[in-house]
């Protein structure tokens, strides 16, 4: 076997050190972390890609990237506190160092979206990866046609990125709709699961691309609604969560039938996952 191992390959599992430059509490369980690489470099990601975040001594976890590539000098990760790594991450304060590998995986398509109508269906923290794309699109607003954003949370307390939501709602060039599954005394808006928003808007299925990201249970229902609006399978785009250890197509954990979520995904078209019976 004569396959020379280059310096780049030598570093396949070596994280780059990044400094935590800002922390923002999003909800009781979720925080937004802004990182800058200590070497001054950019992450250089596509919306929809993920990184492996190392807390040395604790472990590594795959986290989707929430900032737009148009944001330079730093990047943002929104994280729910759930396992060892994310719990430790939540305890970090400004100035702390973490390791970052990536960006990994196939992100959302960008070029094919130009001139198209875009529909974003964000269920809860499904907004974490979609925010990257939404803000990218809004930073390049002239390249895209009509934009519809739907956001659904379980209850008003679980709404994430409320400043972004308010900004999108205020824009004339965005149709923004929001709902919560269960309201409370603070909530005057729409109540019902995210699919109950679908009767309230029209799309042109010939030129619309739909992006659906949310909890596993949401996909079937949201995709069915998109299909009712005559959207072709190729124009429905989703992002799938799986266990990922290596992030580089070796460890086998993220396999969805024959596909590797960390290489072939995490972003897939509905046309692709229809043939992957473990996907949804």
């Amino acid at each position: 076997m004569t396959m020379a191992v280059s310096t780049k390959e030598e570093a396949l599992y070596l994280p780059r050190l990044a400094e935590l430059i800002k922390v923002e509490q999003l909800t009781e369980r979720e925080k937004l972390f802004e990182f800058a690489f200590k070497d001054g470099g950019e992450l250089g990601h596509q919306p929809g890609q993920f990184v492996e975040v190392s807390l040395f001594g604790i472990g590594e976890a795959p986290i989707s990237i929430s900032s737009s590539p148009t944001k330079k000098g730093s990047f943002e990760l929104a994280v729910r506190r759930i396992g060892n790594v994310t719990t430790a991450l939540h305890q970090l304060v400004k100035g702390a160092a973490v390791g970052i590998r990536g960006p990994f995986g196939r992100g959302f398509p960008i070029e094919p979206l130009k001139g198209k109508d875009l529909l974003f269906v964000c269920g809860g923290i499904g907004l974490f990866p979609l925010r990257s794309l939404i803000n990218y699109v809004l930073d390049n607003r002239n390249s895209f046609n009509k934009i519809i954003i739907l956001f659904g949370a379980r209850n008003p307390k679980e709404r994430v990125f409320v400043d972004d939501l308010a900004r999108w709602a205020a824009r004339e060039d965005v149709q923004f709709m929001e709902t919560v599954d269960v309201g409370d005394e603070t909530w005057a808006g729409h109540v019902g699961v995210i699919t109950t928003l679908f009767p309230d808007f029209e799309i042109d299925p010939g030129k619309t691309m739909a992006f659906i990201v949310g909890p596993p249970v949401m996909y079937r229902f949201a995709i069915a609604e998109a299909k009712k609006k005559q959207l072709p399978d190729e124009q429905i785009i989703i992002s799938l969560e799986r266990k990922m250890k290596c992030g580089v197509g070796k460890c086998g954990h993220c396999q969805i039938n024959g596909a590797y979520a960390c290489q072939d995904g995490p972003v897939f078209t509905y046309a692709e996952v229809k043939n992957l019976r473990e996907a949804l």
Partner: protein
Amino acid sequence: MKPKVAFFDFTGCEGCQLEAINFEQELLDIISAVDIVNFREAMTERSDDYDIAFIDGAISTERDIARIKEIRGRAKILVPIGACACIGGINCLKNFYSMDEALKIVYGDDAKYYDTIPARPIDAVVPVEHYVRGCPMTQSEFLKVVKALLQGKRPDIPNYPVCVECKMAGNVCVFEKGETCLGPVTRAGCGALCVSNGRICWGCRGLVDNPNADSEKEILKKHGLSVEQVLSRFRMFDGYSEVAK
């Protein structure tokens, strides 16, 4: 600040506490990482102010129940160590007798001076945070749990059978050698210590979360064990669990 650690013993041979004392290389590091404030087997000082309580032994009297509840009330983190504390262990062999009969067998004419209840693991009485399994407790797992507690993380304890570690060790399967074992349903973490040293797995680390015990029982029968022998295998350490009944 260093966490305050206490060790307490209930029904058992106290061998797991001995394992804790028997660390050679790591003992100094352990002592510098935590303050041991209560450890009858190792020191004379006693304190009721502790963060982490390691519990050796099973619960087998009413007094035990009251005592473990008191310890639970004081400790922030409670960790049973060893088979007796984690799963009931060999103490539960007596659960297959009436308590009167068990007392008579053990204490004869003096039975009237003692009381006893069916033996049970610690978590049958009070909630626990983590486990250090094995008979005696697996030392490397004890270190893993201590380190995880120091780091504030959940320790990564295997939820797969001993077969995984046994195969990794390159052992010839005991079934191929004409013997039988409980490795296929027993929680790994011991590195298949017994099989690697020419013995069989008796299941001292308890079962994995979802053991296919029915299949294991069929396999044991196919390899020559009677129904009674199969059950007595499970009762050796796992008498408290449903699979032994």
